[in-house]
């Protein structure tokens, strides 16, 4: 029985220092990814600089699985026709739609109305009850760049959360037990 376990164990035969080294490697990879993400947040000015399109309401411009890069410059004004990502209080999922109407006063307060290209009506039915407009606070960012299809993985992960856990476990095991 002991023989069988030692044959199946992927960590068998690896000296302890090498396992420790693999763990440090893993930590390096994770922290580098985190650094790049945080840098992107600062560089773009948006709290969430990369988003994946979740719905088809902006077809044919964007479709589910497309990747968007957002920027958000506090100083540059928001104008109609820009594609923005906004979040409504109480609703978790951010929405990617186009600004239809803009009213801005001298103090920099905004009244914003949005609409998805593929929708027939504007977004008022999506806003909260009694909410007629979006304000600047609702906007997470403005779409600067776009890559097709790349975000499909996150959608698959989202629809099948068990798959995400499984993939993380498998990847971790592989990284930790590779003998190089």
């Amino acid at each position, binding site marked *: 029985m002991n023989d069988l376990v030692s044959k199946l164990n992927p960590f068998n035969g690896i000296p302890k220092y090498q396992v420790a080294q693999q763990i440090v490697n893993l930590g390096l990879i994770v922290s580098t990814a985190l650094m790049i993400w945080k840098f992107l947040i600062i560089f773009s000015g948006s709290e969430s600089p990369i988003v994946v399109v979740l719905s088809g309401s902006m077809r*044919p411009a964007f479709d589910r699985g497309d990747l968007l890069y957002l920027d958000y410059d506090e100083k540059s004004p928001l*104008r*109609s026709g820009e594609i923005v990502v906004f979040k409504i209080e109480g609703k978790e999922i951010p929405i990617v739609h186009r600004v239809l109407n803009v009213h801005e006063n001298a103090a920099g307060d905004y009244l914003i109305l949005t609409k998805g290209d593929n929708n027939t009506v504007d977004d008022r039915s999506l806003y909260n009850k009694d909410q007629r407009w979006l304000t600047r606070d609702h906007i997470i960012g403005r779409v600067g760049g776009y890559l097709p299809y790349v975000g499909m993985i996150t959608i698959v992960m989202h629809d099948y959360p068990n798959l995400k856990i499984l993939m993380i476990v498998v990847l971790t095991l592989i990284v930790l037990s590779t003998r190089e």
Partner: protein
Amino acid sequence: MYSVTQRANVILCFGGIVLAGVLLLNILSRPFFPNEVTVDLKLSSLPRFNQNTFKGPVEYAQLVVDIQTDLTHLFNWNTKMLFLYITAEYQTDEYQTNEIVIWDYILKEKSDAVINKKQQWEYFVIDPAMSLRNNTVNLRFNYNIIPISGLVTKHKVGSHTFKLPSNYIKA
């Protein structure tokens, strides 16, 4: 390189890298394409101009426009589609900047890029500040270039200014 899976991994990765490189070259070649557009835009008629209540009093106006332009040279290999829209821009005491989209259109094929549309309208101008009467409105033509990959850009051309009447038009 000693196992099939390793070779497959390396080859597919390399193909992906070359694809990304080609896309990048694509994006970099964009500034070499001409970008100027001329537009003939004018107000055709003003059928409706009144006030109403929509969670509070608002003024609304229906602007019907004629638009003529040729956008064929905006279609290059990195163009996925063009989003065209006409904005009505005006100022009020309460809000210094107002931009209302009154018409939009999605252009996907180069063959449809010559535009000669009359009597177009889609959305009303709705002003919450009740300040449309006697106000000067500037119509502008805008287009949004959505690439196959890369930066999404916004452009504004053309202009047609007119004044709204000082009284409502009762139908």
